[in-house]
């Protein structure tokens, strides 16, 4: 069977499974719709959280980023896992004990203010929409690359699937679908990594293989460590050493700020927080944070191995080769424009950090633009430099040196010459990663609008039936809007997604932590803190990314702070504003203090608050 036939088979099977689960888990009340009836076992919830969390970016792009960044790629590994410690220790058990539906619910009730609630709802919706548009785009990309259907058709198929299982089953359907999606995506990630690890290092554990020696048959000598060899190749070609710390723009301050912003942002993202409302008890909330990180760590401990293997394999199989010696995966992926070869006329491929580099990617160039570049380059070669234009210079000037980072995961199975069914599995895995994250985010949008805005603010007298109908309607509309964003991505989306973490770090995290651990913090200081934190962070990001503002050094650091790391500063501003205003404003009312007490109490002292009995307004 061909790769494409296998891909159709796997995608159809996995989609069939998702729809079957959706039918089995359809719900009839808002409690099932928003929080899965709070009956999800801890391990299953952990698995769903892991799938919810690991997006198309984690699955497809992260290993590629690490592969080109080396040591500094660790910011994503540490940042996107470290947040779970904060989540487990500072937030999850308390939010479960509080026992409502959404994060804005907690902010609104704790600070007894509809203003706080609305600010929280707006943050949740904004963060979720920017994130979900990227996921829908990811669905389209996987479809178009593996199944050769139009990217728009791919997005529409993805939308239809999510639409069915999200409106039918709400959180319950989404949770159990995500459990299935976790298995699909982790299998698709691990199998190629294990196969390539055995081939390259002889170790069946890719995590250990990263620190192993290279098989003598491949390296040509025995006893050479993979990382040592990689460092040597990288420096020979003019790249910076793979394991060296703090090279280029990634100095200590920036690595620190970005990693911390990602950690804190992870703990403040609404679609992750809401998962801890879905379990049975506080104890289960703690365990499910543990399971979630354990399941996530399976992929996150493997990604750096995949990154290094692919880096070694790619340089080794391309650099210094002639057209006849090139591996077949290169030709397959050259068609997609993720990797290009602009020869200097000697027929030998060069991959380096310098001016003699001949490996590029098409980046944002259209097919027509690219073929113009190729024609001019051929003319340049034919005339010996007299006419045409050197394609290498053209592409380097556009910033398209080196292969696209997505190729690392997508082409790894082919690099390792694995069976065609494994290659097809990667497509199903990429789709599972994108769909699971998209559905979790869509539910947050739906619950923010229908529960926090419609029910808690606009129409408190709405009946259960009306609320469920509004919830379903909003999620349906959100799917359509997200799909439209996926088909016609507004330019800002791809640029802003990376900053959603900073915004979450600067807004939600301080407000929730202070809400639990301080009884003194009142409404006005908290709202001012949120507005100051998110305002500063959003200003800095927008000014730097869209208006070319110089990054700030705050008079302390050698280099300016990367906009990705500004959430760390925003969070500090939020804390500082809230804490310094607190003594000037009155204490929260006694019933709020009683609520904080009940959230802090261990579970057995009083039952976890049931939603029906929870204090309303």
């Amino acid at each position, binding site marked *: 069977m061909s790769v494409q036939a296998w891909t159709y088979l796997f995608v159809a099977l996995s989609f069939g499974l998702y729809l079957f689960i959706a039918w089995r888990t359809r719900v009839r009340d808002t409690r099932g719709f928003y929080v899965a009836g709070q009956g999800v076992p801890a391990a299953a919830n952990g698995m769903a959280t892991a799938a919810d969390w690991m997006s198309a970016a984690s699955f497809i792009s992260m290993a590629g980023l*690490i592969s080109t960044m080396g*040591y500094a*790629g*660790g910011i994503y*590994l*540490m940042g996107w*896992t*470290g947040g*779970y*410690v*904060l989540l*487990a*220790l*500072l937030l999850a*058990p308390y939010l479960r004990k509080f026992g409502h539906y959404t994060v804005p619910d907690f902010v609104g009730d704790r600070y007894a203010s509809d203003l706080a609630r609305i600010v929280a709802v707006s943050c949740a919706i904004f963060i979720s929409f920017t994130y979900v548009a990227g996921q829908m785009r990811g669905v389209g990309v996987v479809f178009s690359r593996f199944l050769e259907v139009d990217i728009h058709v791919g997005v529409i198929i993805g939308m239809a699937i999510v639409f069915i299982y999200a409106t039918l089953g709400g959180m319950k359907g989404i949770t159990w679908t995500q459990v299935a999606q976790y298995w699909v995506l982790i299998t698709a990630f691990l199998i190629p990594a294990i196969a390539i690890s055995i081939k390259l290092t002889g170790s069946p554990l890719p*995590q*250990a293989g*990263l*620190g*192993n*020696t290279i098989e003598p048959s491949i390296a040509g000598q025995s006893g050479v*460590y*993979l*990382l*040592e060899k990689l460092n040597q190749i990288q420096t020979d070609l003019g790249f910076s050493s793979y*394991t*060296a*710390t*703090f090279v280029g723009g990634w100095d*200590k301050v920036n*690595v*620190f700020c970005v*990693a*911390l912003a990602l*950690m804190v942002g992870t703990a403040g993202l609404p679609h992750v927080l809401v998962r801890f409302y879905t379990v049975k008890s*506080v*104890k289960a909330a*703690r*365990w499910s*944070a*543990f399971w979630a*990180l*354990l399941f996530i*760590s399976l992929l*996150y*401990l493997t990604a*750096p191995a995949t990154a290094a293997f692919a880096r070694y394999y790619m340089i080794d199989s391309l650099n210094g080769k002639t057209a006849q010696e090139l591996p077949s995966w290169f030709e397959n992926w050259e068609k997609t424009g993720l990797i290009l070869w602009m020869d200097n006329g000697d027929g030998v491929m060069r991959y380096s950090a310098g001016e003699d580099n001949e490996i590029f990617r098409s980046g944002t160039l259209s097919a027509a633009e690219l073929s113009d570049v190729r024609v001019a380059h051929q003319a340049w070669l034919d005339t010996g430099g007299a006419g045409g234009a050197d394609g290498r210079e053209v592409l380097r000037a556009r910033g398209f040196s080196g292969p696209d980072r997505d190729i690392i995961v997508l082409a790894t199975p082919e690099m390792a010459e694995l069976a065609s069914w494994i290659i097809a599995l990667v497509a199903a895995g990429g789709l599972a990663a994108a769909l699971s994250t998209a559905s979790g985010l869509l539910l947050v949008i739906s619950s923010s609008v229908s529960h926090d805005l419609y029910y808690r603010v606009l129409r408190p007298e709405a009946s259960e039936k009306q609320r469920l109908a509004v919830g379903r309607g909003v999620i349906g509309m959100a799917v359509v809007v997200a799909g439209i964003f996926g088909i016609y991505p507004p330019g800002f989306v791809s640029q802003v997604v990376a900053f959603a973490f900073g915004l979450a770090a600067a807004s939600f995290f301080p407000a929730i932590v202070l809400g639990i651990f301080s009884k003194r913090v009142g409404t006005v200081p908290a709202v001012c803190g949120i507005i100051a934190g998110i305002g500063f962070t959003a200003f800095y990001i927008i000014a730097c990314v869209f208006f070319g503002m110089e990054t700030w050094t705050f008079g302390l650091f050698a280099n300016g702070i990367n906009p990705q790391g500004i959430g760390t500063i925003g969070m500090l501003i939020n804390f500082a504003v809230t804490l310094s205003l607190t003594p000037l404003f009155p204490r929260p009312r006694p019933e709020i203090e009683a609520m904080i007490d*009940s959230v*802090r*109490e*261990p*579970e*057995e*002292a*009083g039952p976890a608050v049931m939603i029906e009995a929870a204090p309303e307004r």
Partner: protein
Amino acid sequence: MATSTPVHGSRAAVALRRYWRANIRIMAVLLGLWALAGLGAGILFADKLNAYYISGTGFPLGFWFAHQGSIIVFVLLILAYCLYMNRLDKRHRRELENMDQEG
């Protein structure tokens, strides 16, 4: 709530305060380790630690912490927190039950 019957209300409050202090203490310790492993070994001291290698492997220590070590530590920290807190919850409940029996 069941814990605040008038007879031993203040003793229950004392037990609750003790519970909360123990909770804060374990949190402080674990968050300290979190900062030490992730922000410390993985970033702040990574350049110094890179001079050492994990014996028998090709991992420079700082690089290893940034790419793998910190994640392993994070998983273990949450595990320790779960085990400790669930035991603390149980002990607290036993204390309250004893108070009920003593009247």
